[in-house]
């Protein structure tokens, strides 16, 4: 038997190797065939500070983080003190025998006996292995792979500690309360949002990324950098975010699919570049992984607070699209779509995520890489009308884009208002034609919108509406209410701009009660929906404490909200 579902929280100080064992355990779970949702919460420092790595494991597919804990793995005393009350009555606490705790749910192990402080995490992993009932070979192989590149003596030391601790655990009559039900092994990938974005971008033809480090976006660029030598990418750490976006625009002008990745504060510096891409009609993918602001805010926490900022960023008027993936799979596929649309409509296209999704590992089915096409860059010099004009007026607003050096045709782009051939102008008749040409591209972007997804009962008593990374929690909350006898549904937006009311108005009008759910304090998406539909949507569940949306939070607010 064993548990179908388990929520494990590993807590400790930064520098104790918490992320190392959590990553190895997560990968071992994925290799064993389990599904999971990881929620990483860490303080913004390298050593010290209280950090946690929560792994919600299930034998079935799951999409949301949870609050209630079943199993607490405490690398330090603080973890026990702070999280004891969150543990279910039938839960378990694993801790070092030196830590003080009289709780009956405790399993105390003499970790000091197996290893010095620095290697204690490997001993924890071995005991965890036993308590969860995982295949020892799978866990140990994952440990070996993780330290694969390290020195042989480190590998040998890990092996000794792991074996000693595993033997200790096997010789005790340990409780079986957190043992997982067995599943068949899977060929799943273990990916977080940032990694999925990087892989999706590469598969779509991305060759250039410039960035300035900023939590929680940095690992997108680092993943690209890790692939750069093998896959022929140029990934450059720029002197600032202004340089980063201008470099990407330069690379794109010269014919290379390009992106930038940052968070709110870094994006604030990039804003003039967004407008530049809009005016010069240069394709660019801009990924913003949100964290709570204003200013430096909570650097390592999550929020959905930059939606309206992204919607309006950049002076002047020009079209854009904003994607907000709801899952890791969508991080991959919508990044691809965003890069392809950027090229097709020669516009800045946004992908908006947040710290929760950026760092949230999941088990993901492998992608069919052979079936995925890359974006096709530029137009053919043989097909353009002569003389070649970079900003030729067309019905779609999209002008044939040649690349400099590709032919003898000259490619002239200007941030000033310009004539069809790209040269600076103050002719106000031309101005009108160019404004209208640029805005005509909106029609194409509107025709390619990713539809919001409706799940649940028809004509529900309550319809929850949400976007981006909050979708998983909303879908699970709606399902729980349904189990309690309510007719419920969830409407999830993975693209938040353009909004086309015809695609979702009937859902809103067909529900007795619409509850908007967002990870911000001012209901930004709600206001956008109201503006586009003319509806008034007063029922809102908002979260802005830096933590991700969870089903428990939604249900708690729903019950106390009197909707």
């Amino acid at each position, binding site marked *: 038997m064993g548990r179908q579902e388990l929520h494990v929280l590993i807590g400790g100080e930064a520098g104790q190797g918490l992320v190392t064992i959590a990553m190895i355990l997560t990968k071992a779970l994925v290799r064993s065939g389990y599904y999971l949702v990881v929620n990483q919460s860490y303080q913004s420092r390298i050593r010290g500070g209280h950090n946690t790595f929560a792994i919600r494991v299930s034998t079935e597919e799951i999409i949301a983080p949870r609050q209630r804990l079943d199993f607490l793995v405490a690398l330090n005393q603080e973890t026990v003190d702070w999280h004891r009350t969150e543990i279910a009555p039938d839960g378990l606490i694993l801790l070092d025998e030196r830590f003080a705790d009289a709780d009956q749910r405790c399993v105390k192990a003499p970790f000091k006996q197996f290893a010095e402080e620095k290697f204690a995490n490997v001993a924890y992993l071995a005991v965890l292995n036993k308590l969860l009932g995982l295949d020892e070979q799978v866990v140990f192989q994952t440990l070996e792979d993780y330290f694969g590149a390290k020195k042989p003596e480190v590998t040998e030391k890990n092996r000794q500690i792991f074996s000693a601790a595993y033997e200790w655990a096997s010789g005790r009559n340990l409780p079986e309360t957190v043992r997982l039900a067995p599943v068949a092994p899977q060929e799943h990938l273990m990916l977080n949002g940032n990694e999925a974005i990087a892989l999706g971008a590469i598969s779509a*033809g991305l060759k250039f990324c410039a960035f300035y480090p900023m939590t929680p976006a940095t690992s997108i660029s680092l993943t690209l950098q890790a692939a750069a030598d093998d*896959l022929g990418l140029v990934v450059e750490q720029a002197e600032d975010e202004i340089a980063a976006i201008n470099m990407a625009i*330069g690379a794109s002008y010269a014919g290379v699919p390009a992106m930038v990745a940052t968070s709110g504060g870094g994006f604030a510096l990039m804003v003039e570049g967004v407008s530049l891409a809009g005016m*010069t009609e240069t394709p660019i993918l801009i990924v913003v992984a949100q964290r709570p602001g204003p200013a430096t805010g909570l650097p390592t926490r999550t929020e959905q607070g930059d939606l309206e900022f992204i919607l309006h960023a950049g002076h002047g008027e020009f079209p854009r699209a904003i994607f907000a993936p709801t899952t890791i799979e969508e991080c991959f596929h919508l990044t691809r779509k965003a890069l392809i649309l950027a090229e097709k409509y020669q516009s800045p296209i946004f992908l908006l995520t947040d710290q929760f999704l950026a760092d949230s590992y999941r088990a993901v089915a492998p992608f069919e*890489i052979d079936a995925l096409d890359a974006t096709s860059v530029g137009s053919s010099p043989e097909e353009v009308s002569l003389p070649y004009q970079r900003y030729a007026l067309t019905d779609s607003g999209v002008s044939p884009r040649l690349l400099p050096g590709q032919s003898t045709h000259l490619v002239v782009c200007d941030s000033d208002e310009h004539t069809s051939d790209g040269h600076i102008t103050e002719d106000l008749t031309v101005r009108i034609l160019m404004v209208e040409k640029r805005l005509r591209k909106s029609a194409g972007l509107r025709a390619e919108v990713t539809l919001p997804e409706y799940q649940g009962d028809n004509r529900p008593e309550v319809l929850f509406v949400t976007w981006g990374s909050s979708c998983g929690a909303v879908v699970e909350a709606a399902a729980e209410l349904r189990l309690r006898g309510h007719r419920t549904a969830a409407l999830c937006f993975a693209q938040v701009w353009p909004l086309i009311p015809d695609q979702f108005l009937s859902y809103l009008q067909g529900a007795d009660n619409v509850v908007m759910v967002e990870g911000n304090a001012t209901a930004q998406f709600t206001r956008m929906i109201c503006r586009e539909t003319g509806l008034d949507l007063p029922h809102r569940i908002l979260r802005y404490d830096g933590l991700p949306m969870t089903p428990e939070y939604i249900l708690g607010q729903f019950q106390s909200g009197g909707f």
Partner: protein
Amino acid sequence: MMLSESIYGNYETAWCPGCGNFRILAALKKALVESNLTPHEVIFVSGIGQAAKTPHYLNANLFNGLHGRSLPVATGCRLANHQMPVIVETGDGCTYGEGGNHFLAAIRRNINITLLVHNNQVYGLTKGQASPTSDEGFITKAQPHGVYAAAFNPIAVAVALHAGFVARSFAGFEDHLTEMIKQAISHPGFALVDILQPCVSFNKVNTFAWYKNRCYRLPETYDPTDWSAAILKANEWGDQIPLGVISKNSRPPFEAHFDCLGHTPLARQQVDKAKLKAFITHYR
């Protein structure tokens, strides 16, 4: 076949009569032709300001971007297509003021870009405020008691950072300027030509005559590969202003560090699906 300057066209400009830009444009065309470059083989990038309009008056590939941001755009262009010469043409305010951080970073990278700075020590497009290179005490409507800040010395900064190629010329000496631009284009690494230039409308101090009386050409005995001598020479300003190649070295260009920038420009490379699949196996 010898190229002719006429392939670069002859356009009406928005500059004031007597502006130093006319002579810089003439020298530039000559340098391009003498470098045997046809218009479609070069990418120009410029920022905003009177100088930044220069490439509009040429037949050329051009990305005329934002104020201060031409170097990052040019860096992206060059990495996307490292087989095309990239020339940045813009002013002192754009390069040394708004784009100061990019100036430092481009030098440090040693990206193979030719940077031509029209340095007239004043803001022309916005009508006469001080620029980073305005001398202390220079009076404008925005600095009515004279500039308090010390002048930015681009040559000294570039030499201090071991820039690949650092030269100064003067718009009034067209042949000298043509030669400096040619050398800068052919230098395999970052190349700065700081071009002194009168602004007839807004700089009544640093006039054509002011520059002409002070500028002198470095003697043939001067060795630009002697960095210590170059540091001293770079700090010469005032009654005597040296023109010529102040400093140069053979640091490898930035692009040379990337294996993928070999025979084929990045802009013509496809996704290698087999390698992508192999990379993804790390996530198993």
